[in-house]
């Protein structure tokens, strides 16, 4: 009987110790924050990357961007901050820091346009759902009363007006959001070459600056065809350009 109690006590103590150990283990995110505060930016970078592997959060993206900035990789910092802003579009702090880093790189730092902010009011999926439902509702409200030869009631008229309004708002917003997902940034800290064809040996058709935003026009093998903020168009290696929706 004594041995039973001893075994039971040992089991309980082990369980308590295991619980305590588990509760004291810090997450990669917290470890990254701590390393950053201690100016150990390389460790912070690794921890934030680990945190993002587990769960992508805007805060982890933002912090990883700042770690890159401290490690003198501002172009990569721009991509991380752009992505963080995509995850949390209305975070003023993210936007301010993104513009500050872009300014460091000599890029235009202007405030976002009103329609861009308005389109970020809802996630892309919500805009798409709203547009789809509005479209079908509008179609139903327009067709079914004619089939049944009944007079359109005030309720149906209201529904038709709401559907029309929702469609008018959702389609441009959806277009802006989808277009935003078709963009990316230059992730190298050197000026990148744009080529006239998807090959490194192709003639140079322009240059893209570090951290510069660009819209993806096409892709082929290991190259994207992009149009930069500076209106330069050409093919760029996937090694130095990363889409935001990557």
């Amino acid at each position, binding site marked *: 009987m004594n041995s039973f109690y001893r075994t039971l006590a040992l089991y309980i103590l082990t369980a308590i110790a295991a619980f305590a150990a588990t509760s004291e283990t810090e997450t990669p995110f917290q470890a990254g924050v701590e390393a950053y505060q201690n100016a150990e930016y390389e460790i912070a970078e690794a921890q934030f990357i680990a945190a993002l592997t587990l769960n992508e959060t805007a805060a982890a993206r933002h912090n990883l961007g700042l770690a890159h900035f401290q490690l003198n990789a501002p172009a990569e910092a721009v991509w991380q901050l752009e992505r963080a802003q995509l995850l949390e579009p209305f975070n003023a702090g993210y936007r301010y820091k993104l513009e500050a880093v872009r300014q460091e790189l000599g890029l235009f730092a202007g405030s976002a346009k009103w329609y861009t902010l308005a389109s970020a009011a809802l*996630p892309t999926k919500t805009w798409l*759902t709203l547009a789809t439902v509005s479209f079908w509702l509008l179609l*139903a409200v327009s067709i079914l009363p004619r*089939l049944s030869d009944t007079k359109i009631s005030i309720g149906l008229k209201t529904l038709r007006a709401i559907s029309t309004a929702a469609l008018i708002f959702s389609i441009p917003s959806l277009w802006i959001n989808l277009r935003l997902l078709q963009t990316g940034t230059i992730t190298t800290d050197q000026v990148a070459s744009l080529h006239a064809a998807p090959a490194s040996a192709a003639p140079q058709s322009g240059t893209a600056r570090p951290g510069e935003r660009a819209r993806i026009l096409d892709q082929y093998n290991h190259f994207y065809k992009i149009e930069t903020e500076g209106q330069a168009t050409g093919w760029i290696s996937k090694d130095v350009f990363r889409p935001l929706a990557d």
Partner: protein
Amino acid sequence: MQLRNAFLIFALFTTSTLIAEIRVSARFEPARVAVGSTSQYIVEIVETDDSKKPAAERITSLPIPSEGGLTLRNGRTSNSQSTRITNGVSEYSITQQIIIEAVSQTAGNFTIPAYIFEYKGGRLQAPAATLNVVEGSADAAPTVDELIFLQANAPEQLYVGQTTSILLKLYVSSSVTLRGLNPLERRADGFTVSELPEESAESVEMFKGRRYRVYTWSLMITPISAGPQTLDFQLTVSAQMPDERNTRGSQFGGGLFDNFFGRSERFNLYTPPTQIDVRTLPTEGKPKSFSGAIGNFTMEVTSDSSSTRVEEPIMLSIKLSGSGNFDRIKGPEMPKTKGWRSYKPEFTFEPNDLQSLKGMKRFDYVFIPEKAGSLKLPEVKFSYFDPKTEKYVELSAPTISAEVTPSSRPVMTTAATLTEENSAPAINLSKALSPEELLNTLDYRPRKGRQIEKNLLSSPWFNYLNSAAFVVLTASGILIYRGKRLHQNAEYALAHQAKQALKVTVKEAQSNDAAVFYRSAQDAIRLAASVRVKRNLRSADFAELEVSFKQSQVTNEVIEQVRSLFNEADNHRFSGRIHSADLQQARTQLNTILKAL
């Protein structure tokens, strides 16, 4: 033939009558020149009219017969007009001169014969003119080209973008009186050339044993295209040439009155044809900092202070001294430097010569520190191409350190200000963070952000949503349409009800009970007939059915089978006897009838 000659004579007479007020003359000026010297072949058309001012028709070419050994070049026209009033009668005249330069490299008499040219729809004849070209000799009078000529000392080779100074010299013999200068013309497509200065430097030079007054202008040229480039200048001058007849034969000699009353002539002077070999700058060894400076320069970099405060500017000055194309020198690009914010420079230039080829150009950059500490201003690099050594030279200056202390400016707060007189003084409870500090601030709260989904338009979710909506809308449409038709169309409604009832009846007809079977079979035939003829025949007997069948063109064979089945049903109903084999046969018969209907 005679008729044609007569017509030509008539035409010539008529034309000359119509334009009787037009006179044409041709001459060489001077009529005697040395070999290689230039004379002017002048065709002069004088048109006079008493009633109105005549209008000259511009002549662009003349059909001058070729004269071997005489070169004609640089044709131009000159117009003048005059009005003379004699005893109250006006006479208007207009004179057009076609002036062509003539030069010969051989001695002899050169005559341009008379020729006819068209003018104002008529035909005019230019008379013959003769030029006497003589060999130059020691005692011969100097030619015009020896008395007054133009020269330019252009270099043989230049680089694209290299600015250099050339001297344009006008040599005027001491026996020639210069009366005036016209604007300089140039043929220099591959260069940018500065304007001719209004003032010239005057000097006296001996050239080939002759004394000249030399007027010198300095011009700046910059090649803009590579390859052999032509650089020619033309200057038109008015000058009075010495007149041998007057000076040599006069007892009083040439002098004041000859110069004063002498006649001035216009001369077109050309520099000897010059070609400059313009080269492109070599690409090999070109430094990144090269921005087009060509010459020889030195650089000095200074800052106006070695210490400052955050957000208080410090000035970095770059002085470039030496000789070269200062007008094309831009301020060196400043790399982005952490902790500093910089602006585009302002520059000043202090020339040391009239051509602005030598001097000192100074660029002032404003740097504003964004954080405190010991900061370093960026390293400055400037490169130029030295045309003498034909190599690029890069100058660099070491970084300059600056001690930056925190800002002493008051921090803007958003705290509400107290307005009461006796209130406590406001205390700054908040501090605005600098951009540097803000960039060091992490986000400590990981939140689940939005989902970033790409290819949403081709996602299964989107396809399901649309498919479901389509199905619901289509089904709703069908149901609504069907309900409307049942409600509005009685025949359709009857047929629909009959079909529904027929389905039930056909099922009941599968029974092995003969009574049930025959009753169901008769009902089924009546319902099928109702569907076919779209009339209610649910309670019809065979006679009614037969009439309806015949109207709807049912075959006699089917009608007979219906009759047979109805008779069997009556037999069974009244006699009550039937064999199982007969029931099976009747079921087959019913199926045939229903199919036919």
